[in-house]
């Protein structure tokens, strides 16, 4: 009797605590994320040139109608998915490999951690400028092509050929971004109990077996989380195409966010950009919720 009372008391406490703890964040999210999103959806049914906010015309679903037949929209969507599908496994694997290299304490570990993380500490503008030059098509002015020519190969127009441009951005992005996921993996690796490794070691497991049978199972939650956020960040790809290729050549690096930005700000079609953003948002939300559902089962 006393026990059930205690239990229900605890349940009530938990319920109250749940609301108290989640309220501040939820309130802020509603105020500064949901409200702007509602604005975005609202403006998507208007003809709104960004430089004249006092002259907006209601046009119903015309923006959405236009969007369906807009080939640039579909290409951007396709490119965004392509980038995501390729970059997520590459970057996550790379990040996990890096994290494994520097997860244990050894002399100089923080130096190596800092090195691997350093592309994150360098401004994206510099990285994009540097890689644009590294990728330069002329062997006289581009380091990578100079190397290729020295090896007796043909130079490649990395960023100016529609077949290689997106892959060049993918390679560079995985390299730049891996440090971020590495830190999350590191945090996860710190949580794996030491004794499990010791037990495995006593049983004569090789490091590789330890990795498969101790590290991976213990890291499952972190891996799911990392895949999820890498995917979401990949869907938002913007800076690299903006700085390095401006979406070209032949739309091959035009991504959804890049398209929204150029439509909304560069060209000033704000209403239309809002409709693109709204559709993009719905697609990605659906995707991530499905993914969340899949990974949270069991």
């Amino acid at each position, binding site marked *: 009797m006393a026990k059930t009372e205690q239990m229900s008391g605890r349940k009530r406490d938990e319920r109250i605590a749940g609301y108290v703890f989640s309220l501040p964040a939820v309130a802020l999210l509603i105020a500064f994320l949901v409200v702007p999103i509602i604005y975005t959806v609202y403006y998507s049914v208007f003809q709104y040139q960004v*430089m004249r906010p006092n002259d907006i015309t209601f046009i119903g679903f015309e923006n959405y109608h236009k969007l369906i037949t807009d080939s640039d929209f579909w290409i951007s969507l396709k490119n965004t998915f392509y980038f995501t599908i390729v970059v997520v496994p590459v970057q996550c694997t790379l990040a996990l490999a890096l994290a494994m290299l520097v997860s244990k304490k050894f002399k100089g570990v923080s130096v190596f951690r800092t090195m691997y993380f350093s592309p994150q500490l360098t401004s994206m503008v510099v990285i994009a400028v540097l890689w644009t030059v590294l990728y330069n098509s002329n062997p006289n*002015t*581009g380091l990578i092509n100079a190397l290729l020519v020295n090896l007796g190969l043909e130079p490649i127009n990395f960023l*100016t050929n*529609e077949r290689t441009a997106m892959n060049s951005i993918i390679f560079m992005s995985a390299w730049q971004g891996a440090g971020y996921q590495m830190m999350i993996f590191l945090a996860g690796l710190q949580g794996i109990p030491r004794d499990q490794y010791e037990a495995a070691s006593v049983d004569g497991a090789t490091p590789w077996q330890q990795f498969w049978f101790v590290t991976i199972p213990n890291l499952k939650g972190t891996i799911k989380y990392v895949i999820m956020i890498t995917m979401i960040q990949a869907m938002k790809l913007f800076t690299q195409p903006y700085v390095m290729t401006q979406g*070209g*050549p032949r739309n091959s690096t035009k991504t959804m966010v890049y398209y929204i930005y150029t439509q909304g700000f560069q*060209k000033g079609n704000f209403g239309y950009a809002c409709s693109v953003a709204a559709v993009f948002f719905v697609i990605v939300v659906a995707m991530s919720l499905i993914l969340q559902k899949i990974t949270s089962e069991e």
Partner: protein
Amino acid sequence: MKRKMLCSGLAIMMASSLMACGSSQSTGGDASTGTEGATQGDMDDAVITIWSPSDKESIENWWAEKIDEWNTAHPDMKAAREAIDRSDSYAYDNKIATAVTSNSLPSIFFVDGPQVSYYAANELIVPITDYFSDSIDDFDPATQAQCTYDGELYAISATQSGVAFYYNKDLLKECGVDTDDLDSRTIDNPITWSEMAEIAEKCTTDSYVGTHIIMDHGEGIPYALEPMYISEGKDYISDDGTTADGYVNSDESVKTTAFLADLIAKGYANVDPITDEFLNGACATELGGSWDVATLEANATFDWGVTYYPVADDTHKAVSPCGDWSAAVSKDCENVEATGEFLKWLMNTENVASYADAIAKPATRASAYDEECMASYAEGPRALFVEQLQNSAAPRPRTPSYATFSTDYAEAMSNIFSEAASTKAVDESYIKEQLDSVADSFAEDYNTYYAN
């Protein structure tokens, strides 16, 4: 124990950040001593407020000095200028666009030349014709044209820019090109496209390419290449700014574009040239900006020259690029009278000359060249740019849909050049298709927002 540490740590962090916040606010008040590219004058007291892109030290100092001078003479009409830390002109436009939504534009803001029509058509800036009626003829014709929309003057600038044909004499001699001939050209006898192509061909070797076309994927492309189109016979857009169809996609324009693409297809120019390609000796010639004169004078380790912008073989019509940031009075300006007077003073001969000197660009006012600080423009490469400005400069199209046009045209050119570089051939039907789509999207933008 641990909890205590964490809590006190948090408390300290919070307290220190709040303190830092307080102190930063208290230091914020006296923001007027300014070599540092920021606020000059006191924004709160000011009757006239100005936004312009932040720039190099000499310009920041010029602003500080001028604002001081004005405020001393006009204590009742104080001015203050804010340096806007733009990363590119699109970011600057975003800043303007957001300020528009809250009606918080400053009295005066700077606009890049071709954007004047965009802002004027959207009624974000007001005419200033009356303040310059007696001095406008002193400004070069290209500036007058670029700043005029619908018959009214909407902006005014102190400096200009240009593009001409630079050549590395050392490399040209190595390849057997007669540099004396290039040196001796006049504005009536500039090199032609075929001469340019011939030099580019001769000077393409294993260690450098023959020439350089600006490929910044942005405004640089329409800016630097437009004179080619005009010289061949068709501008990007009709004179009245209403249509691009039959202009940017005309046969003449396709031919002009094909000529440029051919330079890339044959490997005479790089499709993605690096910054400072010419300075580093990686190309023998370039279509380079007037701002390169100072860079080359200070850094070049080779002998170089510069001649007039090349002309089309068929027409021999001399045309050259121009345009620079201009000051405009905003719709939110509460004291138009005082602001107009201020702008008139800011753009007087003496100020234009000292500004042009500080920013190392050609001045817009003819009388400015009589000032002592402009002496370096009397001869040599700088004089050539002034000569081009006064005789052959053509402003970019004056149309409210310029932003859309510029974005799409730059994209189309990137596509065309990339295609040429990949296939090592020029496909005129692809060029036509790309330029058609530029014309189409121009029409869509224009008809949506400005047609009636």
